[in-house]
């Protein structure tokens, strides 16, 4: 009898604790800077795309969800900084497993994985993201925790960038809001 009461007292004590519930759709918990969410393609400061259509991301993708069709840059139609650009760049979000190998593979830091994780759609077709969608900043952005404590490696302050340090290197806007 006393033993049951002891168990109930634990539950009872929890009545006076602060609730840990987060009111999710209204409140979005900031993700950590290393979080891998929706992809983004980036541009140089002068507006040219960073992607040169080398298809290395498509080669690295374990779930084969990236499709790149390159085309030559011409003087009339200069899209990227290199010789070629991606004429078609599609990511099938229904297949993507968010492993982040595309951003590891990209030698030009053209693609990174951002903060957004609310990607549900009504149809499968809508989950195929085109180049235009990936180049735009997402309308509703998920906030991120500060970079300094949660992304800079613990070992030394003047850290030499390693093979996986993409977020620190190329995605400083991860810290915004």
């Amino acid at each position, binding site marked *: 009898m006393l033993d049951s009461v002891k*168990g109930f007292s634990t539950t009872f004590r929890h009545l006076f604790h602060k609730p840990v519930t987060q009111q999710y759709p209204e409140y979005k918990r900031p993700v950590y800077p290393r979080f891998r969410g929706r992809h983004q393609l980036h541009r140089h400061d002068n507006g040219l795309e960073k992607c040169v259509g080398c298809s290395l991301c498509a080669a690295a993708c374990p779930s084969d969800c990236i499709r790149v069709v390159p085309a030559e840059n011409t003087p009339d139609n200069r899209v990227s900084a290199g010789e070629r650009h991606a004429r078609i760049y599609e990511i099938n979000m229904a297949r993507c497993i968010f492993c982040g190998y595309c951003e590891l593979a990209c030698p030009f830091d053209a693609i990174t994985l951002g903060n957004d994780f609310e990607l549900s759609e009504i149809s499968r077709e809508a989950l195929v993201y085109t180049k235009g969608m990936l180049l735009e900043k997402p309308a509703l952005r998920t906030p991120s925790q500060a970079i300094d*404590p949660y992304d800079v*490696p613990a070992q030394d302050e003047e850290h030499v960038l*390693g*093979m996986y340090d993409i977020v620190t290197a190329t995605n400083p806007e991860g810290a915004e809001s």
Partner: protein
Amino acid sequence: MAATEETKVWPQQDILQPVPSELWPDSDNPDLLEINLGPNHPSTHGVLRVVTTLDGEVVVGVKCEVGYVHTGIEKNIEQKTYWKAIPYVPRMDYLSFFSGETAFCMATEKALELEVPRRAEWLRVIFQELARIHSHLVFLGTGSVDLGGIALLFYCFRARDEVLDLFEMACGARMHPRYCQVGGVAEDLPKGFDRRCREMITFMRDQIEQYYELIGANPIWLARTKGVGVLSPDFAIRMGMTGPNLRASGVPYDLRSANGGYGGYRDLDFQPIVEQGGDVHARFRIRIEEMRQSLDLIEKALDGLPEGPVMTDDRKIALPPRHELHTSMESLIHHFKLVTEGFEVPAGEVYAPIESARGEFGFHLISDGSARPWRVRLHGPAFVLLQSFAKLCEGVYLADLIAILASIDPVLGDVDR
């Protein structure tokens, strides 16, 4: 035969006879009732179909049907280069996901005869133990729901989120982090990890006290678990069981310490926990105790974390540093070759087992010298554990069958893979 050579003593005949993994009723009484538990039954922990024959309320026949979540991951891995296969592996045993990654990377490293930096090995220990805590928390929460207690589920899942936060912070994903890479780990820990991890340890220690208060002396809990589904040590060994279920029967076998351990555990002076009894109660208790032990191990690893690189400097395996891609042509060529073709693994066979939250989790890797594994075979603990399920359920009540299934903790993604 030389005189000095000893005569080989083979095991007794009855040990070699297989134990049936199904239980058939020994009478053809027409009053026996055959019911289906599953595949979509909440207490089967996944999609397991248990065809149960009942005599009144007593179980007289059990037949497990598996294969509902067969995903062909082993075959999928054979189509990928080693690097690209890593994100696939944690999707088998999705509760102790980091163990899967580590096992695969360790098997590849063994085939390559590659040295892993010490810091990386210790980081792997931290995350393996975090994954173990995660798995045991889910086990404890869902297991208590099976026995009719809902409070523990909320407490456990709340604590589970704290663990997953640490994964998100360091690895980028809450589950399936692909943090472990061949030759080390992907990134070094972020600066704030140490503090947050220690906070989590303090929080979890308090939580574990509460779990004990809730169920430790609860008479209903004890009546439901004590003496139910007793697994004798001999039978457990004979069925090839590993992990907490074996240790709950009093066998001190843990791959973290057996044969000198592996990886960072060699330095951490690990001693396995043993629980006597072998019943459902012992299997619940040992997992709570193992969580406590994992917290101690994490704390120890954080205290003594060696400095140094987290990735091997072998440029034939590891991708070159990012900043070199813009300056060095040679690095860029290496990068392209590694991503598109992968690294070649010398021909041969290796088997690298590790101790996951469920037991021995080992990859048998056969390489033909190319950049893709010729054959990958996983020794999954949950499939082995499920073999003994029918025998354990002989003559118990239907409600106890659920308790026994919860206590042996199979993950169907690992059983079917």
